[in-house]
């Protein structure tokens, strides 16, 4: 593979699920698309990938990933998490700031960024903390993180809500200086003290402290008004309720600059699963009701919700093999995202593969301001491309995943769709559905970049 100068001729892939065409990848870019690709002068000596029956899509961009490094290398490392990402069809991930130390300084975000480059599986884009230590008291040095080599554009205290309205206002205002975005974890803390699961019929029976939808919706309502007031850019992390979708729809109709994400698990699973008391279903925000799931699907389909974000949150087994109340919140998601979204959105007829590309790549890259990601599959564009077999069926087995986390709520489920190949900067990080080799910068470009 390595001897062909990085030239790949993909034959007959359905581009965005439409007509079958050829794609020629060379030197990190799409050199040609369509009838002329095979006879293009650069196609000489190319590795040919027969892609009949496969769908070609732009590499997926995750706006919400927990890579755990630095600090919780027993849960995940940048290396293992980005392997999982590549296998899942991603070419870029946003690494959330709740590491230890918190990614609240230029030093930490540059460390995460360089770990990502060293790993070479995907583009790792650190998310900077909004407040020092995620403590919600004082703004972190957002400008220093923006100006660092990591070029942070997304800021979030994810896991913790920036609940102080003045601090939230200031953060939204301040990030305008460098075209940043504040990604809010919308959770009113007083309404969710000790909360364990969605508040409703199931929590009433199970005797688990409820997590009311209003605790999410009230923060979103406040934040969209703040974003309007200071004319800034707000992103709402992992929207989980029907009411949240309504508020965001209302805000977009008013022209407020808000984007929103939904996780794959909130598109499929409901709080009925908590009846098992199995903490693999414990997550923040919690699994909601079927009515919420349907509203989230509709919101994603009609563009109210802009993107799918995995909220991939690996945990060591001892943090899940315990009582519900003591278990950590979070689910893995990088290696199942494509299949769950295909199952929940495409096979239900709610979306096409072109829509899939929008919500998993194009819109996500725009939110994170990633110039080289989420681009059209056209000649001259960066070759961040995946090939997907939509007819494949597989049964989720967490023990075989690349992530160190075994906490997949989809374990045992049969899901559609399989990533066959992932091209990151023109290099196949995944081939034949298995990890290939990481992308390595040439000596010249590496020296120039750092």
């Amino acid at each position: 593979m390595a001897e062909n100068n990085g030239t790949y001729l993909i034959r007959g892939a359905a581009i965005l699920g439409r007509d079958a065409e050829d794609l020629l990848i060379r030197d990190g870019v799409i050199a040609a698309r369509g009838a002329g690709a095979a006879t293009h002068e650069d196609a000489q000596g190319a590795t040919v990938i027969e892609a009949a029956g496969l769908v070609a899509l732009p590499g997926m961009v995750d706006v919400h990933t927990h890579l755990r490094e630095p600090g919780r290398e027993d849960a995940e490392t940048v290396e293992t998490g980005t392997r999982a990402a590549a296998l899942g069809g991603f070419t870029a991930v946003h690494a959330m700031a709740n590491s230890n130390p918190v990614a609240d300084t230029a030093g930490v975000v540059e460390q995460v960024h360089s770990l990502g480059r060293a790993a070479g599986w995907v583009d790792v884009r650190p998310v900077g903390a909004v407040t020092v230590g995620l403590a919600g008291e004082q703004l972190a040095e957002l400008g220093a993180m923006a100006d660092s080599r990591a070029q942070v554009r997304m800021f979030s205290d994810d896991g913790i809500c920036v609940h102080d309205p003045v601090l939230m206002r200031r953060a939204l205002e301040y990030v305008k200086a460098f075209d940043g975005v504040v990604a809010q974890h919308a959770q009113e803390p007083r309404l969710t003290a000790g909360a364990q699961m969605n508040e409703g019929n199931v929590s009433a029976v199970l005797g688990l402290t409820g997590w009311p939808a209003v605790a999410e919706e009230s923060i979103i309502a406040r934040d969209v008004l703040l974003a309007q007031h200071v004319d800034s850019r707000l992103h709402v992390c992992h929207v989980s309720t029907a009411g949240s979708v309504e508020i965001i729809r209302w805000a977009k109709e008013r022209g407020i600059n808000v984007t929103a994400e939904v996780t794959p698990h909130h598109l499929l699973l409901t709080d009925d699963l908590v009846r098992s008391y199995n903490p693999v279903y414990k997550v923040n925000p919690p699994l909601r009701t079927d009515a919420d799931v349907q509203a989230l699907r509709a919101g994603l389909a009609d563009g109210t919700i802009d993107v799918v974000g995995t909220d991939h949150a690996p945990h060591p087994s001892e943090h899940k093999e315990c009582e519900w109340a003591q278990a950590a919140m979070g689910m893995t998601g990088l290696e199942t995202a494509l299949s769950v979204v295909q199952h929940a959105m495409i096979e239900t007829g709610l979306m096409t593969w072109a829509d899939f590309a929008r919500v998993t790549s194009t819109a996500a890259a725009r939110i994170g301001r990633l110039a080289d990601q989420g681009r059209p599959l056209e000649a001259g564009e960066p070759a961040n491309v995946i090939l997907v077999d939509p007819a494949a069926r597989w049964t989720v087995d967490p023990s075989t995943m690349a992530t160190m986390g075994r906490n997949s709520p989809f374990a045992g489920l049969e899901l559609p769709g399989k990533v066959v190949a992932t091209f990151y900067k023109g290099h196949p990080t995944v081939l034949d559905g298995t990890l290939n080799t990481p992308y390595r910068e040439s000596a010249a470009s590496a020296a120039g970049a750092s």
Partner: protein
Amino acid sequence: MKHLLSTEDLSLANAIRILDTAEEMAAVGDREVKKLPALRGRTVVNLFFEDSTRTRISFEAAAKRLSADVINFAAKGSSVSKGESLKDTAQTLAAMGADAVVIRHWASGAPHRLAATDWIDAAVINAGDGTHEHPTQALLDAFTMRRHWARLSGGGSTGADLKGMRVAIAGDVLHSRVARSNVWLLRTLGAEVTLVAPPTLLPIGVEQWPCKVSYNMDETLSLGVDAVMMLRVQGERMNASFFPSTREYSRRWGFDDNRLRALDSLGLKDTIIMHPGPMNRGLEISAAAADSPRSTVLAQVRNGVSVRMAALYLLLSGDTREPAATTAARSTEETN
């Protein structure tokens, strides 16, 4: 029945079976030698992650009357970060050869985890988990109510249900495992349940439960009721804005002397007053109500041992075997 985890999934047949077996066990308690050899050589572990002397000694007495070996394991403060995990504790008990684990835990669902995982193979009895369920409490309450109901109808308890009995459960339903277990079991046994509580102490979703809900104690009494079960108000609720003050709580939701008199003036001469204990006298129940002939508080405690003997016996001796104490005479009435 391998475990006793909740009353929500307890069938009518199994509920009646436990209650009938408890009647047999009650007879043992009336004998001079209060002991059966049924569980000789079996080991019952009382695994308590939360203090509850009452429940623990009730289970201990029950197991000892069945000749089981009893190990008391107080595991307060166990957690992933400090001390031993539930998994390790369970595997330790399994290695020691526990046949049954009676678990009391502050976390809802902890008994389900023991039963659903492969950490331990023993029978699991839920002795109260968080704000979820307390099935043996509901069974002993039902046992107490059934005796009362059967006496009124002039029949025997054995085999009977609670069809037509009107039961009010009053107080902090939101945080009460006793209320939850009672709602499900009383539904199964055919009783008509009304929950009486301030709206702040009812869970969101209670409208889906198989019962009526009232915010008005006096109205509930005036509509007629055969048993009133008062729930304990926990100290930590008092400063969390669930209600304005203990005096207001007591006036609106407590069973005070006025309401005790109201039972008489309403002609409800056979209505019993129940409480799972420990009582806050003067808060949710007045001293006069607690000590009145209507009170079944001590009968509930006594019946608790019988019900727990029945649960241990049925789980450890297998479903197919007949109860041991078949020759026992019917015990005396217990209405106070």
